[in-house]
């Protein structure tokens, strides 16, 4: 009840332009519900309407006609996981640039100097992973 109240009150104050409050996100919530409904109806509908003639051969994994050996639940190349970890590291650093970008006119040259320092840390890490061979793909 508390929540509904807060939501409704937030919405009544919502005007046509951005207010910078949580009320701006109200239409996105409606869209999320609409999109979930659409996806569910389409998948459910095609599930009900399609023919169902299941045979053992049909339900096997497709491996271009040859018999499949084992399942895909086995270790894969570590490179992909390394890329994922590196992405998380560097993306967190990129996120820090956003507040700076929005306020950069007020911060002036002093802010620019500090960002330069930050970028050099970024670059040190970047050079380190290149030297370590984390981005070498050919064996």
């Amino acid at each position, binding site marked *: 009840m508390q929540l*509904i*109240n807060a939501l*409704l009150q937030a*919405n*009544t104050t*919502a005007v*046509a*332009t*951005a207010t*910078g409050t949580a009320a*701006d996100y*109200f*239409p*996105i919530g*409606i*869209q999320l519900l*609409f*999109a*979930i409904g*659409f*996806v*569910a109806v*389409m*998948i459910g*509908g*095609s599930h009900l*309407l*399609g023919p*169902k*003639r*299941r045979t*053992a051969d*049909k*339900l*096997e*994994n*497709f*491996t*271009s006609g040859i018999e499949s050996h084992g399942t*895909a639940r086995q270790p*894969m*190349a570590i490179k*992909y996981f390394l*890329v994922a970890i590196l*992405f998380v590291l560097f*993306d967190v650093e*990129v996120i820090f*640039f*956003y507040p700076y970008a*929005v306020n*950069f*006119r007020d911060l*002036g*040259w002093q802010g620019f100097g500090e*960002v*330069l320092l930050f*970028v050099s840390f970024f670059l040190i890490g*970047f050079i380190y992973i290149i030297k370590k061979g984390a*981005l070498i*793909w050919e064996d």
Partner: protein
Amino acid sequence: MINLSAVLLAFDWGFLLQKLILIIIIVSVSLVVAMYETYLERKVAAWMQDRIGPNRAGPFGILQPIADGGKLFFKEEIIPNTSNKTLFVLGPGLAMLAALMTCAVIPWSSHLQFGDTTVQLQIADVNIGILYIFGVVSLGVYGIMIGGWASNNKFSLMAALRGASQAISYELAMGISLIALLFITGSLSMRTIVEEQMKNGIWNVVYQPLGFLIFLVCAFAECNRTPFDLPEAESELNMGYHQEYSSMKLGFYLFAEYINMFISSAVMATLFFGGYDVPFLDESTLAPNVAAIIGLIAFMIKIGFFIFLFMWVRWTIPRFRYDQLMNLGWKKLLPLALVNMLVTAAVMLWLHK
């Protein structure tokens, strides 16, 4: 109970209805555009390869997408025995959900005036519009990853891993190239960015040509389009992460790709090419409704150009090798975007002080 009814009466039902209609229109338009993109793609390919292309269903084959959609919808649904059933269904659903959610913050045009009510042609004017799009686009990776893993097929898994690591690698350069744009606009709201370009009369692409190029390349990679379509490399991986899929679930993966193409064209037009701005025309002299419609047409023409560019590139440039793709993303685009960002910041500060 009295309290509740008072609250319900105070609630702006007109606003809710207006947004609901807008959402239904925009989502259906993106679906129809995605459908006709498949038709256009085949026609463009045919034109470039000196063929005729689809021409049987209806005049000039314009009913072809409907036939294809209907076929996908009524096909038998196959869920492999060894797959994880829940995740197998969840994967395409998530991919489609992420594709449908991105259109929420794009300003399609200025505003329509019906008597006293002003209808903004934008679902939600969020002050962090760009970050919202980034966030939702990143969720698309889950659709690929979950679908590929749940299929329990080595080809699918391989393609899904490729697709995920490709998408996240290019997100880095994309994020940094946008920061250079933010130095100029000073706002993350899509509408403010467009309005600033309208006020200045100069599109952001003039200030940020390199930033735009980096963004364009990354958008191609994010949409898994050629030359970055490694997750769907038929010659190596059969069909890619959706090879175990059939029926509407396969359709969702394909549709999501085309919707993403439409939305990234819209984002590029908004951020770098003035959005619904018509060059050499002062919109403030026109009646608001006329200005809105002209703006909408101009925006659609810009989007259409970018969609054509996607297809043009697809039928012109061959696919990258995987190591070339990763080298381009990490070792070339990322440093280039950083340099672009720092140079932009320095030049901006130098010019203002």
